[in-house]
């Protein structure tokens, strides 16, 4: 306790904060977590592989766990059931009228697939997969699109080396990307044409939140 108090004091003085002085016997604000505590929550993974845990998996191993834990929503091969997200295919569609955004067609990094699956999947039973299972599911999905082979061993070393097909598909935000300058106030357009009416599309929800009868 005295150690953390001392550290807080040093931190405060070092940064010249307008904090009240910390006196001996003061109840500290917060405490220093143990490395084990941090590790319990620190599950994030970066494209350079920082954060990837030990473990391994292949597509062949992933097929079974994928079928048991993922196929219910995402389909037997990642083609999706109903309106749940499609996980395979889509390459070549990004510049079309109906782009299909999947890991293979859109995601810039394979590490994101591992990170998201580990932290949030299966939907409704998050963080219930072992690291080996997450590696194997990731391998299974990447193999569906031929990004890796069936026998490719995915682990903390091999995963960050995978170059995703759309790795170069992103550019930094250039906005504002619309005309600048003083806007027109008078006689701005010759003729106004209504190009569409929302009510003709007829997809606005009908109200279901009726007040209780008086």
């Amino acid at each position, binding site marked *: 306790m005295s150690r953390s108090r001392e550290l807080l004091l040093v931190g405060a003085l*070092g940064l010249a904060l307008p904090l009240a002085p910390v006196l001996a016997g003061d109840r500290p604000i*917060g405490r220093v977590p143990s490395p084990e505590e941090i590790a319990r929550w620190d599950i994030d993974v970066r494209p350079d592989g920082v954060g990837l845990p030990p473990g391994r998996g292949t597509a062949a191993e992933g097929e079974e766990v994928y079928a048991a834990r993922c196929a219910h929503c995402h389909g037997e091969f990642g083609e999706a059931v109903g309106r749940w997200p499609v996980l395979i295919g889509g390459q070549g569609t990004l510049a079309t009228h109906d*782009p299909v955004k999947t890991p293979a067609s859109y995601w810039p990094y394979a590490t994101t697939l591992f990170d998201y699956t580990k932290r949030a999947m299966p939907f*409704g039973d998050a963080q219930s997969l072992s690291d080996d299972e997450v590696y194997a599911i990731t391998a299974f999905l990447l193999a569906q699109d031929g990004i890796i082979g069936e026998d490719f061993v995915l682990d903390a070393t091999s995963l960050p080396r995978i170059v995703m097909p759309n790795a170069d598909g992103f*550019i930094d935000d250039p906005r504002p990307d619309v005309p600048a300058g003083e806007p027109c106030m008078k006689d701005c357009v010759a003729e106004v044409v209504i190009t569409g009416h*929302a009510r003709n599309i007829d997809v606005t929800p009908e109200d279901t939140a009726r007040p*209780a009868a008086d």
Partner: protein
Amino acid sequence: MAEDSRGRRAGAGLDRRSLLGGAAAAGGSILAAAAARAEEPAIPAELPDWSRYLGPGVDDEPYGKPSKHEAHVVRRNVAWLTPSTESSINFTPLPWLNGIITPNGVFFERHHGGRAEIDPSAHRLLIHGLVEKPLVLTIEDLKRLPCEDRIWFLECAANGGMEWRGAQLNGCQFVRGMVGCAQWTGVRLKTLLDRVGLKPNAKWVLAEGADASALTRSFPIEKALDDAFVAYAQNGEALRPGQGYPVRLVLPGWEANMSVKWLRRIEVGDAPWYTRWETSKYTDLLPSGKAYKFTWVQEANSVITWPAPEHKVDGPGEYVIRGLAWSGRGRIVRVDLTFDGGKNWVTAPLEEPILPKALTRFYYPWRWDGSSTIIASRAIDETGYVQPTIAQLRKARGVNSIYHNNAIITWLVNSSGEVENVQVA
């Protein structure tokens, strides 16, 4: 009364007409009042019950609710948008709200793994990574730190996202309702980072939620040391569970999913993480097949909240145009209105307060002559940015970018006084 809210809804014209009669008979609704106004009855000789008999006492309602006659002022969702309500969004009922503060009970919600119901005594905020000394804080610890009150809007990146290809949803609530504005109470993230001490290579910050999606977003250290905020209260009370109780991040002016709810972890690093929510989602696809990434700022935007498709203009005469404007880059400096679809514009006065990165009100007295009228608003912020037309946005980004559609919204007030969402060219 059951027909009341239905009659008030923007929907099929037939539905509305058939229900108007019922609503008028029952009374109490905006439309009913409108329909009845032509033959406004005299003040009745008989006292209403509420003027004669005692109402409930002070112990009747420990936490108050709006009048039952305001039951239509609720969040609504669009079922076809998402495969599940747990990863979906609802919309603030803007057409019925006033001022710049969004009431907590109707502030829009976007969840990615449902609404986490957190026991605050079991919640911790962990700060670690490239810091001199990591720290774990309880909510009570947070409340001992220097605090501030700040009014900022939060807006989902997808606000307006259904209107890229054309006018689609016939309601102000659905077209611009992924926004709300509140007074937040909490601690600057800088205060926390100063206490843990940043290492020299600290360049990026990761925020993580404690919900079932463990949502994570990366943002640069400059934002963390500028106005990034760790909030535990909203509009005077503790955050609601749907807004991240017991503690959330607020990144003012930036797309609201970065304002991570149920905040449990802040990690400092030297590079972005490229999480699912900054790669697969919340990137803006262009016609070329390339996409914008890290599109954080919510550019200037505005909407007329009265009249709107949820309302009807009840005959020629005097009214007040009501609307909201906001910009993630700072203050709104001007709002222009058109009454002829964009040929000519006039400037509307702004209502105080005019705060940076907050909703700003404008009111404009208007006499409707009963003819078909195309109205729209256009916001300009302190950087000189002018809210674009949908044509300008489509020219820059096509129709498949989903996010950041802040185009001018146009309402057609037709000669019957009904209001429609339309797009013009």
